[in-house]
């Protein structure tokens, strides 16, 4: 049987960000898939080396528009580890609350996008309308709807006041009702079930061996969550359960995320009630002692890792970001095999891709079509030579 190649992206209505997939298709079945990144590389890691640690907080926030708080938490934790300081308890609780609010808004956003991929526009509009509620809460706390600017090295910048708690509770109960309603829809509505059940299967064994993270992994029945496995912020003091579903398909990915919304709302409620009093930040020195640190955070999309190397100055030597989407790309390629063309968008949406966070440098020789991945050293040497020749 002859296969035909269908390009998907970098510009495609189903993709919010540019990424290219080449699908080899036999009739309507996908037999092979090649992803290609590199359309939206921004060089944030390099930029971070030219800024001070404090300036970097605001740069790191812009790695991702949706899970911005997860990235700054990860970065500030790494810096705090190098500095050897412990942030105040109240700041830890505020970080937990904000992180969970971010998870709620991200999962609502994702639910809408997935509904759009299946052609269910009404659910898309409804989910995004309800997402406004949590954005209003975030705006009330931080002054912004996305990129909250809450984190700083040594704590958080804004406090959650007593007067806000009641309003937050109102909005949380509304969000909880809506999440229950969407759960009912996504388990009952036939057209959604037809498009999601049994689509994009990722077996637990493959999920583990291909290093899937976050809701994608938990939808394959593996209860792995940084919040529970290696607690940061105040997660060791807040009771919550790790949501898993065993069906391994897009439907269970939807249910995992809706249940996580409900779980997050409970976490926020508990944290608001049990928040200790006290300061919200400590003063930190400008210069960071020499050393290396790795920090992990469970972003809404999955495990987020930051590696930081310091040489004792006020600027980092190296910052390495491993965004969850990068970890989820190999499992995605596995899921896409043997999928119908019509199901490609919903399977891709299933991992909640955020391409810009995952971009790396790759060089392609246009004559030989060879691809190489260069280390920082090699790139630096190459640039020196290139300028010398000029």
């Amino acid at each position, binding site marked *: 049987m002859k296969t035909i190649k269908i390009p998907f992206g970098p510009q495609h209505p189903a993709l919010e960000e540019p990424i290219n997939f080449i699908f080899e298709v036999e009739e309507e079945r996908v037999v092979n898939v090649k992803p290609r990144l590199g359309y939206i590389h921004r060089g944030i890691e390099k930029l971070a080396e030219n800024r001070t640690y404090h300036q970097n907080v605001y740069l790191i926030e812009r790695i991702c528009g949706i899970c911005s708080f997860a990235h700054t938490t990860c970065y500030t934790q790494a810096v705090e580890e190098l500095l050897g300081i412990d942030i105040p308890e109240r700041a830890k609780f505020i970080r937990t609350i904000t992180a969970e609010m971010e998870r709620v808004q991200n999962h609502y956003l994702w639910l809408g996008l997935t509904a759009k991929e299946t052609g269910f*526009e009404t659910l898309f509009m409804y989910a995004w309308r309800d997402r406004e509620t949590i954005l209003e809460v975030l705006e009330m706390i931080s002054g912004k709807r996305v990129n909250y600017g809450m984190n700083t090295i040594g704590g958080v910048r804004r406090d959650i006041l007593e007067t806000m708690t009641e309003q937050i509770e109102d909005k949380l109960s509304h969000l909880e009702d809506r999440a229950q309603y969407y759960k009912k829809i996504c388990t009952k509505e036939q057209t959604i079930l037809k498009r999601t059940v049994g689509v994009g299967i990722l077996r637990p064994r493959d999920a583990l061996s291909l290093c899937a993270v976050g809701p994608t992994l938990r939808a394959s029945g593996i209860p792995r969550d940084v919040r529970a496995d290696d607690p940061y912020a105040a997660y060791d003091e807040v009771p919550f359960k790790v949501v898993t579903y065993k069906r391994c398909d897009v439907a269970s990915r939807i249910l995992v995320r809706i249940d996580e919304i409900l779980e997050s709302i409970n976490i926020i409620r508990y944290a608001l009630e049990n928040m200790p009093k006290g300061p919200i930040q400590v003063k930190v020195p400008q210069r960071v002692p020499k050393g290396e640190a790795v920090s992990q955070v469970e972003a809404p999309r999955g495990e987020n890792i930051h590696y930081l190397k310091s040489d004792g100055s006020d600027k980092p030597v190296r910052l390495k970001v491993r965004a969850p989407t990068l970890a989820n790309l190999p499992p995605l390629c596995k899921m896409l095999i043997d999928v119908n063309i019509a199901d*490609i968008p919903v399977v891709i949406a299933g991992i909640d891709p955020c391409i810009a966070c995952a971009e790396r440098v790759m060089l392609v020789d246009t004559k030989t079509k060879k691809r190489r991945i260069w280390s920082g050293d090699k790139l630096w040497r190459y640039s020196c030579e290139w300028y010398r020749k000029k």
Partner: protein
Amino acid sequence: MVPEEITAILQVFLFPGFSFLFSLAFFVEWLDRKLVAKFQNRYGPLHVGPKGILQPFADFIKLLSKEDITPAMADRVPFIAMPLLMLTLAMTPLFCIPINGCSALVSFEGDLIVVMFIMTLIALLLFAGAWVSTNRFSTVGGIRAGLQMFGYEIPLNIVMIGPAIGAGSLSISEIIKWQSQGRWFIITQPLGFAILTICLLAHLQVVPFDIPEAETEIVSGWLVEFSGKKLALIRLARNFKLILAASLMTSLYMGGTSGLWQPNPLTYFIKLVVCVFILSNLRALFARFRIDQFLAGVWRYLTPLALLQISIVEVLAW
């Protein structure tokens, strides 16, 4: 007295001819967009004209002024002719629908068959249009359009024949006359009406059956290469298809122009709005099916049910 020729010309060009149909097409698009927006908790068209009623017309004008590209690889003549043919074919059957009074502009025994034939031609034309534009997405979309036609065509035609058997005539005007005493076929053949509605959704290619132009899957499918004036004409043709669909629902099953009073355009208009409401409501309710799911569903459920309906009609008529 006005000479008969002038009345005929006025009928063709003013009411219920071209001018009226064009205005109706834009109105129906506005209604559809506004209704779906309301169902989805949005505003919909808002700015051009009162409540945005002129927005579809503004969109049409805007599209006419856009750059019109014919792809280098496309088969030029059929590619350019396709939107024109499409508009003509979508408009022609509307002359067989009685709008003013009980008989249509073009009315003869068997015009129902002509309407069916033209509806099939439109589906075939989609496939041809997709084929000549030689784009991978439009090819996939065109094949899907063809497959979808094989699915919905048979039950659609069966349930359109149902009222014809009931009224004992193959003319739409005769069917309306038969229903004018309040014996609407929607009461005697409710199953037929339901199947007709579902098949018309598939014919109009709207959610849940917008499979041939699924935007998130194949980038609006068969019409991906059409731009500017061609796209404007195709969109206008789509509005005419929506009018035709709603008119068929009213004329065949809901008594068309006839009502409590004398047969008049207002009754037709009210029923048309109701039918557009039904179609728009369904459009906002579902997710999109996959083509194999659609075909399986149609052959497993719709076609047998349509046959059952027509058998009941046959038995009762006999």
